[in-house]
């Protein structure tokens, strides 16, 4: 755009009077760019998903997920297995980083061109299910075309929104505190342990900072999953019914906890914390070497391991580990207007229940939902980081408390507001109490209470 205007202008400067009104028109039209997909969407919504009668007719399914390269490789291999069994079914595979994934999925959906099968997590499952984007899989389950009988009941139940089965849980995970083992060994420091109190953990981190000159831990005050877990240990929750499950004072206490840790040198400087607040796994401070521990989901171990040469260890978050829960790390959903719904459901069923596919996928998305497959994978897995995450998750599995409810609509806003509020405190621009008040008000607005 800039080049074009230059070209016009250099040709002659005398006729610029007539040029810029056009420029004004042409430029202010951001709205237009936003609205175009909607138009096309309106047109495309007309077609409805019919079912193919000929079982051998060629079918191409679009398949969309977020993740890193490790996940891409495994997913492609698993889908190839399906094509091997059903040569008429091929896949149009698209994947990208988590950053921007949901923007793209929303745009595709608005255009009526959502992928036939897409990966989704509980931050958005409610949003998509409530608006009928996802196909209700319950009838398929009733007809035996989708088998969730080998799933732990809680995990199968996780995909149910308003009585409809909106997604099939693909992997179970839980919070994992990942630490740099190599660094600790080099300085003969003790590993952190599951069940440490928050105070002990912060002291441990302070000690690591002093000895190694690498901050002992990432500051998780902007991290909703750490905040959530901590709330549960205080007998609270992120959501209760359609309300917030915590008070402003809880938020203040949480910010104060980490303000104290910062003052003791247990955590990095605010700008480094800001880097660590990015969702990309490759930017987590434990792998960029800017902190000794990072707060992640346990299933992210293999992807983290790809970004560092150091040996990594994983434990539960501090405090009482019974506050942790078995979370559906993500789901696969089928687009309601997919032209090949039946095949798409069959593919999801295959990925969830086929032993070979399960072995290929391993624990990259979390522990396999199908318990039979989970046992086989646990016995046969060779990848050390996968092995480690299985170990920690099975160990914690015995202590898990009850799962919280699936997050409310507006959850993604709550997450981004927490980052903003926590960073206000980290950069010293707000007191914990003031920032907590702002956060609390923003949360109430976000979930509409």
């Amino acid at each position, binding site marked *: *755009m*800039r*080049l074009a*205007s*230059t070209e016009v*202008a*250099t040709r002659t*400067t*005398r006729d*610029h009077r007539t*040029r*810029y009104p056009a*420029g*004004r028109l*042409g*430029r*202010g*039209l*951001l*709205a*237009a760019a*936003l*609205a*175009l997909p*909607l*138009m096309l*969407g*309106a047109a495309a*919504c007309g077609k409805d998903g019919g079912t193919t009668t000929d079982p051998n007719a060629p079918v191409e399914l679009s398949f969309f997920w977020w993740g890193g390269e490790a996940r891409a490789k495994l997913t492609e291999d698993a889908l190839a297995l399906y094509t091997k069994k059903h040569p008429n079914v091929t896949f149009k595979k698209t994947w990208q980083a988590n*950053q*921007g994934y*949901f*923007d793209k999925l*929303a*745009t595709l*959906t*608005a255009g009526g061109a959502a992928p036939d099968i897409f990966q989704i997590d509980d931050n958005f499952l409610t*949003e*998509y299910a409530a*608006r*009928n*984007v996802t196909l209700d899989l319950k009838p398929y389950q009733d007809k035996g075309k989708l088998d969730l009988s080998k799933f732990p009941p809680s995990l199968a139940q996780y995909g149910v929104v308003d009585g409809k089965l909106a997604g099939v849980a693909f992997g179970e995970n839980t919070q994992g505190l990942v630490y740099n083992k190599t660094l600790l060994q080099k300085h003969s420091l003790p590993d952190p342990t599951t069940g440490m109190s928050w105070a002990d953990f912060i002291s441990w981190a302070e000690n690591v900072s002093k000895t190694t000159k690498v901050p002992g831990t990432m500051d998780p005050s902007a991290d909703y999953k750490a905040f959530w877990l901590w709330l549960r240990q205080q007998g609270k929750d992120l959501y209760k019914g359609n309300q917030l499950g915590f008070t402003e004072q809880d938020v203040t206490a949480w910010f104060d906890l980490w303000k104290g840790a910062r003052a003791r040198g247990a955590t990095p*400087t*605010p*700008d*480094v914390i*800001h*880097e660590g*607040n*990015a969702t990309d796994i490759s930017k987590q401070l434990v792998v960029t070497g800017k902190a000794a521990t990072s707060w992640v989901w346990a299933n992210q171990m293999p992807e983290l391991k790809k970004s560092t040469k150091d040996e990594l260890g994983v434990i539960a978050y501090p405090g009482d580990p019974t506050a942790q829960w078995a979370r559906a790390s993500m789901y696969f959903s089928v687009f309601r207007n997919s032209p090949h719904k039946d095949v798409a459901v069959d593919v999801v069923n295959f990925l969830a229940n086929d032993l070979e596919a399960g072995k290929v996928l391993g624990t990259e998305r979390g522990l396999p939902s199908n318990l039979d497959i989970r046992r086989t994978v646990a016995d046969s897995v060779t990848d050390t980081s996968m092995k480690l995450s299985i170990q920690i998750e099975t160990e914690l599995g015995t202590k898990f408390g009850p799962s919280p409810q699936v997050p409310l609509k507006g959850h*993604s*806003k709550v997450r*981004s507001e927490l*980052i*903003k509020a926590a*960073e*206000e405190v980290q*950069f010293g*621009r707000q007191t914990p109490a003031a920032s907590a008040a702002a956060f609390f008000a923003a949360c109430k*607005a976000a979930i509409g209470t």
Partner: protein
Amino acid sequence: MALRTEPAPARSSEPVNRTPAAKRGSGRRHDRDEVAGYVFLSPWLLGLMGVTAIPMLLSLYLSFTNYDVLSPLSEVEFVGWANYRRMFTSDPSYLHSVRVTLSFALIAVPLKLATALGVALLLNRAFRGVGVFRGLFYLPSLLGGSVALAIVWVNVFNREGAFNSLLAVFGIEGAPWVNDPRFALETLMVLAIWQFGAPMVIFLAGLKQVPLELYEAASVDGAGAWRKFFHVTLPMLSPVIFFNLVLETINGFQGFTSAFVLSNGTGGPVDATLMYTLNLYLTGFTELEMGYASAMAWVFLVAIALITTLLFATGRFWVHYSDAEDR
């Protein structure tokens, strides 16, 4: 672009039609020319309608609804002026994004134009290799809108970046510029100013059009370099300055890419780089409040139109169009 897509047959048939038309008298000929004109315009007109005008009208409609991207358009609810009221009464981050955008445009645009004019004046002399220098100074603008450049910027201006290494040579300890809410927006401004190539090229073209005899006459009258600059160059250049000012102001208000990349798509740290367009994007696509985002887009359109009108109004007082140019 519209001309290029014009189908060839229409063009080749024209001379055939013209001959009988000419015989029939000038009035009809005029009509036919008009028709032909619209035929030639049609690809562009279709584009304008399909890609711009109709979606714009749709977004105007959506701005009065609670459209949320995922629901079908047939299910949206009309909410009246609620979206517009919310912007100015109960959305602190909206007002914050307005402040960020205003300070960005008010600081970065004048500095960018001043830099562009200064460099253009330097490069307007004849010396060996001037072409190479012009090319080099233009280069950053070629890369301007690119994501890659913004990524480079992040790496130059973070704590371990090249800029801080440079400062360290002089014993100065730098800040984590891009990751510090105090400096993140300023870092974006520097990036914008650095890309002064486009206005610079326009200034150069303008400078070349100033008649040399004016300078000669001024010299004869005893004017020094400064006088010549203020009394010959600037007035003669004022239409070009005006042009650049309008374009760059609009550009400045619409800054998106660099803010998006620099902040990892969040407008952070702590909303320091939450430009208007970025806030709009996040509202529409991440928070799925497309109706509200559409309302923001319309307020933005009106605001930019107002600012441009204001510039035009002031332009009457300082922009000089010489007769020599109005051939």
